């Protein structure tokens, strides 16, 4: 069941100049419902002229004990900049939990989670979930430079981590899609989130190597819950809403590879 609820910002930490980790809890203290990796929240910043619509953000982690949602935010434009400037104690309104979620792998599948830039956001939650379900997730994380790769310590606590940076400041130098692990290891399942060109390249790699692959899309979303039909992706079933039937899609459903 979707809810609209006021949250209080417990903390907002700059991980680098552009990436922020917000931890938020319901203002009314009510226990949060179950949430699943891949789902997102739709965030409203009150009284801002640069944000008319809500802003979708993946659930980076759901800390059930602390009744706290983590949001990993890239300050990309006017709206996210404004959010990044918010301080602990301020309140924000969320609609949540929205969207579908990543599917669980089959038992004993070898799994790789590939995240580019802030696209790692949903993968931390997914990784932790997979770990707790008995899987052994591995991570391939990439960015332009070392500081673009956030929450490395959290990922390292969750599974094996490979990294790439375009400038070589961390891990392999080059594009994430050229990391040797993709050549050397045969994974059974890939989950990925990041810039669209990266995801398309990975989808092609996965399709070519007959690896099951799920991607998380970031189409623009006015409503986030199926009311406006603006967030559509062209799929084999026609134009369908990413906010309700996604954001996670198996690449077989998409028209990325032909």
């Amino acid at each position, binding site marked *: 069941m979707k809810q609209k609820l006021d949250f209080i910002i417990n903390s907002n930490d700059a991980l680098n100049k552009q990436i922020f980790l917000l931890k938020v809890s319901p203002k009314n203290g009510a226990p949060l419902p179950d949430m699943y990796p891949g789902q997102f929240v739709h965030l409203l910043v009150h009284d801002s002229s640069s944000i008319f619509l809500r802003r979708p953000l993946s659930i980076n982690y759901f800390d059930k004990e602390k009744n706290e949602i983590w949001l990993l935010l890239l300050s990309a434009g006017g709206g996210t900049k404004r959010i990044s400037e918010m301080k602990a104690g301020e309140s924000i309104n969320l609609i949540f939990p929205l969207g579908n979620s990543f599917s669980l792998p089959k038992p004993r599948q070898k799994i790789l989670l590939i995240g580019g830039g802030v696209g790692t956001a949903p993968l931390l939650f997914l990784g932790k979930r997979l770990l707790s379900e008995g899987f052994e997730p591995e991570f391939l994380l990439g960015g332009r430079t070392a500081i673009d790769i956030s929450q490395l310590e959290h990922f390292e606590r969750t599974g094996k981590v490979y990294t790439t940076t375009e400038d070589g400041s961390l891990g392999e130098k080059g594009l994430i899609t050229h990391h040797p692990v993709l050549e050397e290891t045969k994974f059974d399942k890939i989950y990925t989130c990041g810039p669209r060109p990266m995801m398309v390249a990975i989808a092609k790699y996965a399709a070519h190597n007959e690896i099951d692959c799920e991607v998380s899309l970031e189409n623009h979303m006015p409503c986030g819950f199926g009311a*406006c039909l*603006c967030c*559509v992706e062209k799929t084999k079933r026609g134009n369908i809403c990413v906010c309700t039937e996604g954001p996670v899609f198996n690449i077989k459903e998409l028209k990325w590879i032909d």
Partner: protein
Amino acid sequence: MDRLKVNIGKLELRNPVMTASGTFGYGDEFTDFIDLSRLGGIFVKGTTLEPRQGNDYPRMAETASGMLNSVGLQNKGVDYFLSDIYPRIKEYDTHMIVNVNGSTLEDYVACTEALADLDKIPAIELNISCPNVKEGGMIFGISCTSAANLVKAVRKVYDKTLIVKLSPNVTDIAEIALAVEAEGADSVSLVNTFLGMAIDAEKRKPKLSTVTGGLSGPCIKPIALRMVWQVYKAVKIPIIGMGGISNWKDAIEFILAGSQAIQVGTYNFINPTVSVEIVDGILEYMDRHNIDSINDLVGKLDY
């Protein structure tokens, strides 16, 4: 709650607050947030005779206090509506009104006929103002003759409450309202979206796949309000006002300008509970101002 009762044609509404077509899905999308029976009515998605895939993504651009959309009437067609949607939504305890669209006069008539006998669809809203499809839509809404011809043809096959939705992209909206009133429309609803455009300066490309799209949200409210007032002074049939309504104050303004009822559109995306908050706000306003019936406010602008 009788204080909020209003009539639109043969329709009696529990209250004047309804939700606008294309912004409220089929109602289902909002049941987690609100009790639909608290609404005067729900205008469901634009429906056409044949299924439509709508326009390509991107279909949306955010603008100052508003947004552009070019959904382009994506829907599964009236047959699917009858078989798969109607059985579900007919259970809702509010008026479900279908927004009827077409490319040709014949389309509109056929789509209307398919809906005419549905018990729980007490009215249709004829959309002659969609700016987002190449054929039909707005073309009918920007000339008196074509609007009148269309309404005449639909009126022949439809006995229940016929609401005609007007385009704001005209020099004289009152003239179009008069033309459709003369052909027997029971009510006019206004406004649909304004034809607008957004450009990505860095990419030098339009932000919408269709280049232009329909502007909605608080930014258009002053123009929409003016149009309601102009139409109110011209016609006798009840007006359903909309355009940028985001709180009870906006709703009262539209009512004072001459709206018998109102629709909330884009703001449902931002605040999915806004419609029922407006119902509450109107009641509080009426208490504060000692107003017995909402009808006593309609068009009562003191100027």
